[in-house]
């Protein structure tokens, strides 16, 4: 094939660590897995004999199922480990849990955790490959990848596109991974939301910031509506749900002023009527379900690539 970029990462912790070429390599690899879903026998022997553990310390349906399906389509054995605990310091430590699983011969650990940095900690402590399935509000790299994959699929390229990300930026790992992936691929990103939901020193990120959705919606090619995560909001960052919806909800009314072909995205699960109206979520501009479908191909690519790197490393 004569590919220029060589994948060398045994772990996927975040997209801030990756170059544009590496991100493109994942997307190209995912493309080759995309047609899998249309086959009658949806399985390849790529990871036969490998063991993948899904370690989920936070609730998740979409991401966990997507990883499970991606691993099984590549013929890996999958262990599901779910433990939702509010206190990570109680009981068995993360490292001990992972070392125990590793002793059973696990090759890849897919981890979702409420504490930022947990996958990094794990990658330092065990030999298996570590794939971050979302850590606190640090990163959610496979979500970032499937988002840019979807945009590329629809538009061919992200170069020069204007993308708005709306909502709770401060507590969003999706926003961070999106910013890295989108800007590295040449898009201009505007973060939109109330100042109380913006992280510290947000202007140092390679983005524009706006507190006024109506002022910027007309210029956007893509709009990504983040879920308001009530479980993560501290205090009272906005006065009420209806006030939030009034200023930052994606309504049919606002859609009238957007570009006709604007892509509407959402990482799910949707709070219908809160950050996005049902008619918009289900409307012709929405690529929300396409994102979910693409997540599978992207995660197959990631599992495949980290395993390759691990094998090369010996």
């Amino acid at each position, binding site marked *: 094939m004569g590919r220029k970029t060589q994948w060398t990462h045994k772990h996927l912790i975040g997209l801030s660590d990756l170059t544009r070429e590496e991100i493109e390599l994942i997307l190209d690899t995912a493309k080759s897995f995309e047609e899998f879903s249309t086959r009658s026998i949806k399985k390849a022997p790529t990871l036969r004999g490998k063991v993948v553990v899904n370690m989920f310390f936070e609730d998740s349906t979409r991401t966990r199922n997507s990883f499970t399906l991606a691993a099984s389509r590549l013929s890996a054995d999958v262990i599901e480990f779910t433990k939702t605990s509010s206190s990570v310091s109680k009981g068995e430590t993360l490292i001990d849990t992972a070392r125990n699983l590793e002793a059973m011969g696990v090759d890849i650990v897919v981890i979702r955790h409420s*504490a930022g940095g947990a996958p990094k900690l794990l990658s330092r402590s065990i030999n298996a490959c570590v794939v971050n399935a979302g850590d606190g509000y640090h990163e959610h790299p496979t979500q970032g990848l499937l988002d840019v994959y979807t945009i590329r699929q629809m538009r061919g390229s992200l170069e020069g596109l204007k993308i708005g990300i709306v909502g709770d930026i401060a507590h969003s790992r999706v926003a961070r991974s999106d910013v890295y992936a989108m800007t590295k691929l040449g898009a201009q990103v505007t973060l939109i939301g109330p100042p109380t939901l913006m992280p510290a020193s947000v202007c140092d*990120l390679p983005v524009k910031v706006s507190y006024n959705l109506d002022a910027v919606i007309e210029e956007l090619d893509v709009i990504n509506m983040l879920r308001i995560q009530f479980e993560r909001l501290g205090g009272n960052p906005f006065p009420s749900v209806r006030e939030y919806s009034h200023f930052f909800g994606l309504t049919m009314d606002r859609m009238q002023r957007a570009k006709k072909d604007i892509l509407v995205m959402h990482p799910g699960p949707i709070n219908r009527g809160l950050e996005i109206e049902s008619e918009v979520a289900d409307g012709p501009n929405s690529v929300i379900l396409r994102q979910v479908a693409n997540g599978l191909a992207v995660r197959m690519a990631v599992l495949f690539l980290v395993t390759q790197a691990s094998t090369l490393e010996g």
Partner: protein
Amino acid sequence: MAKPVSQKILIKNGRLIDPKNSVDTVTDILIDDFRVCRIGKGLSSPNAEVIDASGKIVTPGLIDLHVHFRQPGDEEEETIASGSAAAVAGGFTSVVCMPNTNPPVDEATAVEFVHRMGRQARKTFIYVMGAITKDRAGKELAEIGLMSLAGAIGFTDDGCGVQDTGVMLRAVKYASMFDVVIAQHCEDQSLARHGAMNAGYKATVLGLPGIDPLAEEMMLWRDIQLIKKTRIRYHAQHISTAGSVRIIRQAKAEGLPVTCEVTPHHLLLTEESVSDYNTNYKVNPPLRTQKDVDALKNAVQEGLVDALATDHAPHLQSEKELEFLAAPCGIAGLECALPLYRKALIDEGICDWSQMLAMLTWRPAGVIRVDKGSLAVGDRADVAIIDPDVEWTVDADRFFSKSRNCPYIGWKLKSKVLYTIVAGEIRYRAAT
């Protein structure tokens, strides 16, 4: 308990730096009967132990206003004995233990217990700060008077600050009838919340909740307004921000009885160190920015910093191997403090040895009003002998402290404590 032994010690040809008495000269010192007996060139004494201190610095024993020895309650992290051994290995002849033990030091028997353990350890002098409020809960005043009678030299709820302004006002008013210092870990919880590092770009990128510098500055500013009503001595613990320096500068300019301390890590490290979620850099107040480090160094240069203090905070390795959010705050640093101060201050041209040692001897002694930090004839013989230029590598396996949560492990540092003499007795000799 062993009886005190009067040891005769003759320190020959050392460079005596005694900032309190403006001494910086090569001389001999004879120690006898627990005290400095003679100072002068060409001393001899037939049955004294002779220490050749040529090329070495001889200074009053160092004083650390801020250590956590974890006893009672968390003896697996540190004990008063292990902490005291670490202290003398660092050249410290007096330390002040913080009250956030388990149970906290919030009544007189606890103060007496810490003192007693300190005497039994027989390494460094132990002073005690009691809690300002019962159970350090920030609600009701602890028995400040009775603790003071038991020997507590000051009060703080260290680990957190007293949040309620009314409670704090009552505390400073009440405590002003005793000769004690009120110290504060300045941190407004409503701003700091569950923060794990400095609020800023780094925290945003790492997805960690931040602690805004304002959390420290608001409480410091508030407290200074409160003490204007009482004139009690007030000590700001481990200040870490440029804003705090401005507040201290202003308070001192107004002639208020305000003092402050700075840690080695806030002089040497920034939030950049946290990049890899390395929990050895998780500390409270958090590591700030280069701008703040520079402001603290300027404060040292201006003479605004009264004391250099380690905030020696030992923790178990297993606790530090947790997720960054879950790991406890703290750096264990008594045994390498002196060379760290040297690196931050002397090597950077911020101050000279005499100025630096002032912040480690008589000036901290003044904060807690104890008769220490001076080496004139007749003074109690608390002495550190330092090889100023020898280079060594920080090796946790050689720590006397029980803990290893030290970001400086592997660092090559200059200056090493060779001997520590406490009340005329050699309590530490560096392995040769």
